[in-house]
Every structure is written in C-alpha cells, then in structure tokens.
C-alpha cells in the first residue's frame, strides 16, 4: 500500500517579484514499511521536499497523496493533527526543550494529542531507545548521543506512520551516530516507515532505497545493493 504518493510536485518561493523554483516536478511513491533515504547536495531541494512530505509546508502545484488521500484541501488544524498523530521528527540539532526533564520532553507531542496515560507511553518510548535510567535528567545533563535518542523517543511516542530523520547523525560522533542508525533500523524492522534526509552516502546506505535529488529534480531512485547494517555499541545503549 502506498503511504506517500507524489505526482509532478513543484515548489516555488516568491520574494517580491523574484520567483525561485526549488522543486521542478517530482514524481515517486513510498510504501508503508520502507526505509528511504533522500539524498542530494545543499540546495538540491531535499529539505523542502521533507517539509512538504511532513506537512510543515505545502506544494505550489502537483499532488501529494498521504494514505491515498489528496492533501491539497487539508486545513492548517488538520495538518497539525496529522503531524501530531502520523509523523515523527528527528532533527540534526535534536531540538529538545532546555531546563526540562527527558521524560517531559518525550511527553511534549502527547499534550497536543487525544491520547491518555502520558507517563506510561513516554516511559515505553524511552525504554525502546534504552534510556529508562535517564527519565528525570535535564536535557543539558546528558550526552549528544543520548539527546538524539531522546528525540527518537519523542518521535515514537505517538506511534506515527512515518518518521522523518533530518541529518540525524550530523552532530554526533561516529559511535553515537551508529547507535542512532541502529535504532532507526530496528524501528524499521518493527514496521515503521522511515524517511532519512542526508547528504552523506555512508548514512544513506543504511536505507533500503535512495532517492537522489539535484537542483530540484529527481536524478535517480534505486534500491541499495549493499545495505549497511548498523551494529549497536552495547556500552552506548546501556
């Protein structure tokens, strides 16, 4: 079943009289349960594409079907609820709330949802990234790798259909980065759809499929032949 289906997707930015085209008509599909990497150099439009796919932005033209539903007419509040219930975000710079506990950070999406048992859900999510022992630490008291795992737990807590990871290893050392990729592959094995945005081939090779963009055009879309399987560092997952 197609989770995401885009057809001739275009995005233009208008500044005064100047129109800058960022995406020049993209067409592809992503199925449920896939692990896809979107690759490309800076300015290729990969971030813009991710923002549109994750309902943070709207396309200028073309169609975007999510779960076979055309998203063109969705209003802002409905998009907010889709982000809350169906989408999880992992950012390069973690974006955790300062002066706030690990547990409260993970609970953040829940306060905008209709779900009950916030503590229980948040603890379960933290357990799945191996951070049960850090619940009441403040986010400035934990390491970078742990921060990204808190962010993964936050992305997971509402049980989303798809997780967007925007350069998730960009600010991490290779060991911590490896652990993050290990967790993402585990989540994919459990059935979560993962869309990874990166410019590093090494990172992208953890995915099953790579969509390459250049100057707002799709240049290739192929399966990864020799997929990297991340080995978790046992010490880091403690």
């Amino acid at each position, binding site marked *: 079943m197609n989770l995401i289906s885009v057809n001739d997707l275009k995005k233009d930015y208008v500044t005064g009289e100047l129109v800058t085209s960022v995406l020049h008509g993209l067409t592809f599909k992503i199925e449920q349960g896939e692990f896809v990497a979107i690759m490309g150099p800076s300015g290729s439009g990969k971030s813009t594409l991710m923002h549109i796919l994750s309902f943070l932005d709207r396309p200028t033209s073309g169609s975007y079907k999510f779960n076979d539903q055309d998203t063109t007419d969705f209003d802002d*509040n409905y998009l907010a609820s889709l*982000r809350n219930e169906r989408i999880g975000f992992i950012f390069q710079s973690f974006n955790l709330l300062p002066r*706030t506990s690990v547990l409260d950070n993970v609970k*953040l999406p829940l306060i905008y949802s209709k779900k009950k048992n916030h503590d229980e859900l948040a603890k379960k999510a933290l357990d799945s990234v191996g951070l049960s022992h850090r619940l009441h630490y403040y986010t400035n008291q934990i390491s970078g790798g742990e921060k990204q795992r808190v962010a993964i737990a936050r992305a997971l807590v509402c049980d989303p259909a798809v997780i967007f990871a925007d350069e998730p290893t960009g600010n991490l050392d290779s060991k911590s980065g490896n652990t993050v990729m290990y967790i993402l592959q585990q989540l994919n094995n459990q059935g979560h759809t993962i869309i990874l945005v990166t410019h590093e081939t090494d990172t992208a090779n953890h995915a099953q499929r790579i969509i390459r963009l250049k100057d707002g055009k799709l240049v290739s879309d192929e399966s990864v032949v020799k997929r990297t399987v991340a080995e978790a560092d046992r010490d880091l997952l403690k």
Partner: protein
Amino acid sequence: MNFFSTIKLVIGNLRARKGRSFLTILGIVIGVAGVIIIIALGAGAKSLILGQVTKLGSNLLRVVPGKGESNGPPIPGLVITTLVDSDAAALRGSAQAPHVTSVSASVLGSATVTWDNKSIDATFIGTDYAYQDIFNFTMQSGQFFSQAQDQGGANVVVLGSTTADDLFGASGVDPIGQVIKVKSSVQSEAGGVPLRVVGVISSRGSSFFQNQDEMIFVPLSIGQNQILGIHHLQAIDLKIDATENMDSSVQDVTNILSQRHRIQKSVDKDFMVRNQGDAVDILSKITDALSLFLTSMAAIALVVGGIGILNIMMVTVAERTREIGLRKAVGATNAAIRSQFLLEASFLTGLGGMVGIIIGILVSYLAAKLMISLGYDWAFVVSWQSVILAVGVSILMGIFFGLYPAFKASRLDPIDALRYE
C-alpha cells in the same frame, strides 16, 4: 490540548524562569499594591475627616457676619459688627423658624490663661449655656455654666481637658473651684479677668478646624465686655430638629435676619448662613477627588507595569522561537500556541495582582495601625471593589499586553522557527 495541561505547561515554563518571572511581575505588583494602598488610605482619610465633622453634629447651622464668598474674601482688618445679641434672641423660639431647637451666640479670641504663676495660651469662646447642648459636650468633672450664670454674667469658666491638664496636671490640684486669670492677647491692661473654674469638658480629640480640648469657655457677656471689649457677635450656632429641615431652616433664618437688618436684595446681605451638611459634602468631594487623582497615578504605574509585561513577552517569544517551531512540528495548532503565551502573560499578571493585593492590604493595615497609635480616629478599610478592580485590571492587562506577542508566536512559520538561531 485541554486547559488543564496548558496550565501545567505554563506553570512549568514560569518555574523554569523564576528570576525573570519575578522581575516581570514586579511592575504589576507595585501598581496593584499602589492602587489598593491609595484607595484604602483615601477611605481612611475620608472616614477620619467626616467622622470629625459629624462628631460636631450634622444638623447644625452657623450664622457668621459678612457677605458671601461670592463677593471675594473679606477685607483684612475689617471687623463686621452687624451681628448682635438681639439677632440671636430673635432666632430663639421664633415662630418663623419652627425647626430651630437651640440657639447659641458666641465670640472667639486667643488669650493667656494664668494660674499659680503658670501661663498658657488658649483659645477662648464666649458663649451661652446652650452651647453645650448644640455641640454635645460631656463633662469630665463639674458642670457647664448654667443659664443663670450665663445671663447674670458670673465670673466662671469651663476648661477643655488639655487646658485643665496643662494648668493643673502637675500640681495635682482639682481645677474645680480654682480661680484663673484670663487676659486677651489684644487687651493692654495687666492682670486679666479672674474667673472661677466650674467644669472640665471630657476629651474629644482634635476636630479638623479646632481642638476643643485646648479651649476655654466663658459666659458671652464676660467674653464680650471684659475680655474682648466688643458688643457684637462672631457667630450664632443653631441646632435644627431634623436633617431634612436643614434647607428650609437656612431659608427661615435668612428671612428673619434679612428682615431685622433691612436687607432688600440678597447680594447686600451682611451675614452668611452655613450648613454643616454642606461642609460634609464639600469635604467628601475634596477627598474623593484626591483619591481619584492618586488612584489614576497608581493606574498609570499599573499600565507601565503592563508595558513591562509586553516587553518581556516579546523577548520571550523571540527567545523561544525554536521551541515554538518544535511545538508546531509535533502537532501544536496556532490556537494552542496562542493560548499558551496568552495564558502565560495573564498568569504572570494575575500572580502579580495577587502579590500586589497582599502587599497592599498589609501596608494599608500597618498605616491604619500607625495612624490609630498616633491618636487619629482612622478606619482600616479595604473595599472588595478595589481588590476586584486591581485583579481584574491586571489580568485584563495580561491579556491585552500578551495578545500581540501571543499572536506573533502563533503565526511563526515552523520551518523558519526550527532553523532560528
């Protein structure tokens, strides 16, 4: 997102920024406390002033010589001699002024009072026996002088409690029966008039124009002839049977005196009839106006505090741009962001209002205690209206000054906000 979780969120955010939250509400605290203190002090001052006027009796009229204030102040040094004993006699029991129950004529001056080589300065009032009834004196010891003593021009005197204390307190001698000498400050001859003390009036504290405790009272004829050397009156005080007859009695008295003085047009009047009730009205108006003025000053302080809130909220929104972006990314709607910041601002101002009320009530209470310990008849009044006003205004200001920053926060583009450094 429900209201309860928003409250929890807001309290968490404010607790994480204790120092700044405190500084933010300081302006509101001062403004609200100011409003409460000023309103409470205004009410206290009003109760003090009005209490003193009504203590004198609110159903009193006073006739004084001279034209009305509308013709400007009297010429300095000009002595008006047109009000005389027979005017007072004519008002006493007149069929034309049926509501007048008591009439008392008086003269007034300052004098040196001497007993046993001890001299003090006092204000003396030469008046008749009806004065006690009109001004509701109670006696600490002895009697006020009688009708016989008054009309017979007996050499007697009644002392105010302070005067009695000053003269006799140190010696321990009972003032009743002692002879004191009273000498007007305008009288040139030595010695003074010897007068026998027949009574001491109970202390009644200072009234706003004069302190009766520091006065002495002598029969009218003694005051006129022996101390001052004049034959006219300086005031006639009248007691009216009921407050609702005050206005008609002013008219009655005016008619009687106009007839006696052969006044054709009211502008030529050589006397004035003053109503104590009018004095109460005027004083209420003055204290109200003063309170209003001071309250508006405090209100300005409150508004300045509100602008402080606006300022801090703007900074907060800028500082938390990434947080706002994140919240939107994980599903916060514009409305949720807006209510979070709006609630944060009104929570701050509401809290400031509460603290301000507590401080305001405390300070008003201490001020009242201080005034009472200084001997003033001061009332500690904090009206619930002023409390509701202060809290209401501070919360409204939180909403008003929080609205723009909250609106700004809610309109942030999540993509830009997430990238914000």
